């Protein structure tokens, strides 16, 4: 139908607008709030074709009907009119963009390479698909067409088919049902483990940055791994696993022992995510303050001996904060230099989110 053509043209124009304005959406949290399973809803201004038209004063008076004396209130202007100004079209429309498309835009904008899953080809899983046919089954799965064919064949072969009266009445043994067929599917499994420092020095703005960044990282990884799992660990002087909501909302105080989170993460990987089967992406965000040099040394050992050999890539993002010394990043740099199994990124503010995502995902690992 022609309208589909116009609709898809319209949508591609909209997507073009989202693409052009992508940076604004990346650094703006409102979009994440409107996430549904497969889609995000992005409010954008309705595209208006400009014409000579009257200015907004037109809406300020008119003729009405009903009771009331001079000066009586009669309700508020409807939504969508907004302030008189020189911004065009305050009417908003909501566009749905699938996570896949969003990831594509992200990839395109940042020129991100495709991720090469490691060791994935060897892993096969069995998947059930309803492609089989069986003579028994629940009525809900009865296949009309196959049943009819079978009955028709029986009519013809037994010579009772009458073209003048082509009614076919199936009997019990004509019935055909859909059934499960097992198929082998290659399967890639991936887990993202987010770790965040929630000690007093990480403020709301810092957490918002982590939230935005992890949203985009997730979007990108999801595009490459169907069953992406995410886990969340918060830590100050000790670490614990939390759900997503808590992860972004908790604020604690106290000291910081980064190794506590690394240990918990290590334990998680060892018990649940065998590195031969899983693509593992630990992300750690902190402001770079660690309690002691000794703890830092412990972290470095853990990284060298456990994480780097087992994970796809270990990412560390350092968010600038007023209180953080930023020492941890320097320590990592000094220790590992240009080891490409470790990605380091410094995020000075919201504006730097895009660049930092590029740091993390730009390696295609």
């Amino acid at each position, binding site marked *: 139908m022609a309208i589909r053509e116009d609709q898809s043209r319209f949508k591609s124009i909209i997507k073009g607008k989202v693409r052009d304005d992508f940076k604004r959406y990346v650094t703006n949290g409102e979009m994440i709030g409107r996430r549904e399973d497969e889609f995000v809803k992005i409010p954008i201004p309705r595209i208006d074709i400009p014409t000579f038209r*009257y200015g907004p004063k037109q809406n300020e008076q008119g003729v009405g009907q009903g009771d009331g004396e001079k000066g009586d209130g009669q309700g508020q202007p409807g939504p969508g009119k907004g302030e008189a100004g020189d911004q065009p079209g305050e009417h908003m429309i909501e566009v749905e963009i699938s996570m896949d498309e969003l990831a594509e835009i992200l990839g395109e904008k940042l020129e991100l390479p495709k991720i090469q899953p490691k060791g994935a080809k060897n892993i096969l899983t069995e998947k059930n698909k309803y492609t089989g046919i069986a003579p028994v089954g629940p009525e809900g799965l009865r296949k009309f067409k196959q049943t009819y064919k079978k009955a028709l064949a029986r009519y013809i072969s037994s010579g009772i088919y009458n073209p003048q009266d082509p009614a076919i009445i199936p009997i019990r043994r004509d019935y055909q049902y859909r059934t499960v067929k097992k198929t082998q599917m290659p399967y890639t499994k991936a887990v993202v483990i987010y770790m965040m420092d929630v000690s007093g020095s990480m403020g709301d703005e810092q957490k918002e940055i982590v939230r935005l960044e992890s949203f985009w990282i997730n979007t990108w990884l999801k595009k490459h791994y169907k069953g992406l799992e995410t886990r969340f660990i918060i830590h100050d002087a000790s670490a614990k696993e939390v759900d997503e909501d808590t992860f972004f909302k908790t604020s604690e105080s106290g000291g910081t022992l980064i190794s506590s989170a690394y240990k918990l993460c290590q334990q998680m990987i060892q018990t649940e995510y065998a590195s031969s089967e899983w693509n593992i992406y630990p992300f750690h965000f902190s402001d770079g303050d660690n309690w002691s040099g000794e703890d830092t040394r412990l972290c470095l050992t853990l990284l060298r001996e456990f994480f780097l050999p087992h994970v796809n890539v270990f990412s560390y993002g350092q968010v600038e904060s007023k209180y953080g010394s930023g020492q941890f990043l320097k320590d990592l740099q000094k220790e590992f230099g240009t080891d490409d199994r470790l990605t380091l990124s410094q995020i000075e503010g919201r504006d730097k989110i895009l660049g930092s995502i590029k740091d993390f995902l730009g390696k295609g690992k």
Partner: protein
Amino acid sequence: MANLTPELESERKRILKIAKDCGLDCFETIFELITYDQISQIASYGGFPVRYPHWKFGMEYEQLSKSYEYGLSKIYEMVINTDPCYAYLMEGNSMMDQKLVMAHVYGHCDFFKNNIWFSKTNRKMMDQMANHATRVRRYIDRIGYEEVEKFIDTCLSLENLIDRHSILNGLPKMNEAKPAPARNEQFMFKVEKSYMKNYINPPDKVADQKQKHFEREALKPEFPSEPVRDILSFLIHYAPLEDWQQDILTIIRDESYYFAPQGMTKTLNEGWASYWHSHMMTRHILNDSEIIDFADHHSGTMFMQMGGYNPYKVGIELFRDIEERWNKGQFGREWEQCDDVRERKNWDKKTNLGREKIFEVRKIYNDVTFIDEYLSEDFCVRNKMFVYKLNKETNQFEVDTRDFKAIKAQLLFQMTNFGQPIIKIENANFENRGELLLHHVHEGLDLQPNYMDATMQNMYKIWKRPINLVTLMDSEPQLFRYDGAEYTRHSLADDKKAEGPEQREFPKS
């Protein structure tokens, strides 16, 4: 005949019979029963199943289908002014709704057929629109989607620049001679070999010719000789367009003129159809079990919200008022001169001309003349009408006055030029440089500045010479100018005759 269910079909026949008995005179009307998706689709195309491809229809569809799916709105009825008339019913509406819609549609059909403002519209517009679509698609194949789409965007930006008052005479024709846009090429001989160019056409000679040309031009009467309201037609004739562009602009203009009468008779048309659906439903069509649903639906349609003008409501009340007045003889000099309240209240001369009168009104009026002629003080008082204003401090609409004159002035003001600003071409050779000078006839409201700016830029794309516009902005006469690169404004405040723009030197800033 269409795909109505037997039950609907028999109702249709019954309602048609009733409509005819009431004196309605319709084209043959074909009802189609379609799904909500189809109805959103056709509605996005302005009622036509085939239109030229453009994203704006996609946008409409996106909004209509979404708002239906979310349960925010529902299209009950759609009827197209063609012969035969096409009307759409939505599958799954209740029987009462369908009957109501059919009765309402017959009202519209009668109006389309008989109202004088529709007399010149193309009744085969269904075919015409499909033709337009084919033509545009052909250009797309030849020139490319992007470029054609971009040009349509430009044209749509100018689509309201037509002369609505000319539609009674059929589409106006241009009969002025083509002006000579001053271009260097015009004063040169054609040169095959580029190295010969400066010998065959010495630059000083060309400049000399051009100068002479301007001198000659300056003596000529201004062009156009009188201001032009049908700007689209002017552009089609005189703008330097390629053939395909000219054709597309013509298409946009034709469609704009086709839809214009509907914008000019909204109140009258909806009022008329509502008057008849209400009349027929309550007297002839409804059965007992449907009356509550009908009342609910009807009053929902007639509800007039603050901040909004409901043409259904104003229209139906005015028609009822006219019928009653003419039935009782409340018109003419004697009535106008009567000051006695009691006498006026009991005035009934049993003239019984009401029915005849409303048929006359539906024939020869449009919204402006309708309101101007029949909105009476009694009517305003009886319907508790008032003018409201937005109180900026409280951000609330407030009753401002119940003064009859103010109400009428406000209503008529909203309808001036049917809600569109009046823009004329004053001069197509402004400053003797082939620039376009437009004049916005200020009616009390400023133009929306950012839209004005963008629209002038679009007009530049077509005229390809600077566009000037004189208007009143913030109570100060100003000249806006877009020269292809820059957008400037000059105040004309010190010019006493700023009302009528004329050729003069504007200070350069």
